[in-house]
């Protein structure tokens, strides 16, 4: 895999003759582009043909050296002033039509918020779910790199995207959508997309923004609407990231998992990196598995089972493990979670897929905005007033 963040497995190989137009505006763009191409090519070829013909026909060997004194022609001047102008005005009018469609955001459509910073794109969905949609992988830890996902958009459903920059001017360009928009510090700008094709598409930062400008790239993943709904519920994988997406149910569940010190006993990775023996089963790949119980029967590890095992851990104990888990994790009089939080915890445990190597907790990437152990990189301090 190359190091420049374009990942592998999508749009590799040779460039197609025609890039795909994957949005409503993108499909509007194509006819205008080819119209201008055809008209201007005709004009250019006319000029070239005339130059060629004149150069051959009136070359010195062909002519006497005497030339007529032609000073000009008002009619011709008028003709080749007005004709190009009229043609250019058709470009203008058609262009305005498409521009209008591209920048006038329809009312009442879901809004995704995208923040640009040197050198990454961060997106936040209406439900609060957050994801890094791309950036400079060379500048990240392996875990942060694993956290890079995609901006997931639903097929055939318009979404509004609002941008702001944390530092310098960036530009969010999506060639497949034939659209780009500058992302400016101190001000919101909005555009909208109506994807018309499934697939992965490049996002480029098109406004020069510093050392790793060319690595400030990302990915847009257009999925069927049903999958999009699932994604919003926090089921991992859709956005392409290996880690739970910040803001998703699973991510919040992971936070509760930390708070309740579950990892003290449910040591992942067989205690790798912690030199502690697990005192409770590994939860990776738990969801959906058949759990052997002490009484010899099995239980299907569905959501109901997971919830029950948290609220009442001694009810169905995994074969080979001692019933050491306290019973106060669930909701209740002395309970440590609410029903909502419990749902998030369940979502996290569901998210822990089999074979997925989750690093020890201290290596988990911090969510955006969360307090970090390491001091943030120094930035120019904002003024006292700030506005």
């Amino acid at each position, binding site marked *: 895999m190359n190091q420049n963040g374009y990942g592998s497995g999508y749009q590799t190989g040779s460039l197609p003759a025609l890039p795909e137009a994957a949005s409503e505006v993108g499909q509007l763009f194509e006819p205008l582009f080819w119209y201008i191409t055809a008209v201007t090519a005709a004009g250019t070829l006319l000029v070239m043909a005339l130059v060629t013909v004149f150069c051959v026909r009136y070359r010195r060997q062909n002519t006497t050296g005497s030339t007529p004194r032609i000073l000009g022609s008002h009619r011709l001047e008028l003709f080749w002033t007005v004709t190009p102008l009229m043609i250019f005005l058709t470009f203008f009018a058609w262009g305005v039509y498409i521009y209008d469609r591209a920048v006038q955001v329809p009312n009442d459509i879901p809004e995704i918020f995208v923040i640009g910073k040197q050198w990454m794109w961060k997106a936040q969905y209406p439900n609060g779910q957050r994801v890094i949609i791309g950036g400079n992988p060379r500048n990240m830890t392996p875990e942060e790199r694993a956290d890079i996902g995609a901006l997931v958009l639903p097929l055939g459903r318009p979404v509004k995207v609002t941008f702001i920059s944390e530092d310098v001017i960036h530009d969010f360009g999506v060639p497949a959508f034939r659209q780009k928009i500058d992302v400016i510090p*101190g*001000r*919101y700008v909005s555009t909208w997309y109506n994807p018309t094709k499934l697939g992965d598409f490049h996002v480029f930062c098109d406004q020069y923004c510093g050392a790793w400008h060319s690595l400030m790239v990302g990915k847009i993943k257009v999925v069927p609407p049903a999958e999009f709904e699932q994604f919003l519920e926090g089921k991992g994988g859709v956005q392409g990231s290996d880690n739970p997406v910040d803001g998703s149910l699973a991510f919040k569940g992971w936070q509760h998992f930390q708070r309740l010190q579950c990892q003290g006993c449910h040591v992942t990775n067989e205690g790798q990196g912690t030199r502690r023996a697990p005192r409770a089963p590994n939860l990776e790949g738990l969801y959906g598995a058949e759990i052997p119980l002490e009484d010899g029967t099995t239980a299907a590890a569905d959501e109901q089972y997971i919830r029950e095992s948290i609220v009442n851990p001694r009810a169905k104990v995994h074969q080979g493990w001692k019933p050491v888990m306290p019973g106060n994790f669930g909701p209740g009089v002395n309970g440590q979670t609410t029903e909502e939080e419990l749902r998030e915890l369940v979502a996290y445990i569901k998210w822990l897929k089999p074979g997925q190597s989750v690093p020890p907790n201290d290596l988990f990437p911090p969510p955006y905005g969360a307090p970090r152990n390491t001091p943030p990189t120094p930035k120019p301090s904002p003024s006292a007033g700030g*506005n």
Partner: protein
Amino acid sequence: MHTPEHKTDGPSTMHDVDNPAAMFVVYLVVLGLAVANILLSTTPLGKSAIYIQLGIASVQAVLVAYYWMHMRRGDTAVTLSAFCSLFFIGIFYLLVFSDIWTRWRMAM
């Protein structure tokens, strides 16, 4: 179509020399306008004050240009260059404000 002039040389003629009395009158007017401008700012005119003040400043500028900078006896090219600078400043203002006036701004 005019041909470049090539007059014989010689010092300027007397009618090109300023009349000191006239210059002094211009001086008094310009100074008076400046005082008026400052006094104007103490009146509760509010937002319209700036337009009047800039208007007064423009009158002052015209007086200075016409009498003291001798635009009244300058070439056509001089007049043209003065108008050109104003014209292009005007374009600059107008087109920048075509953006600023119609731009949607977040309250910050």
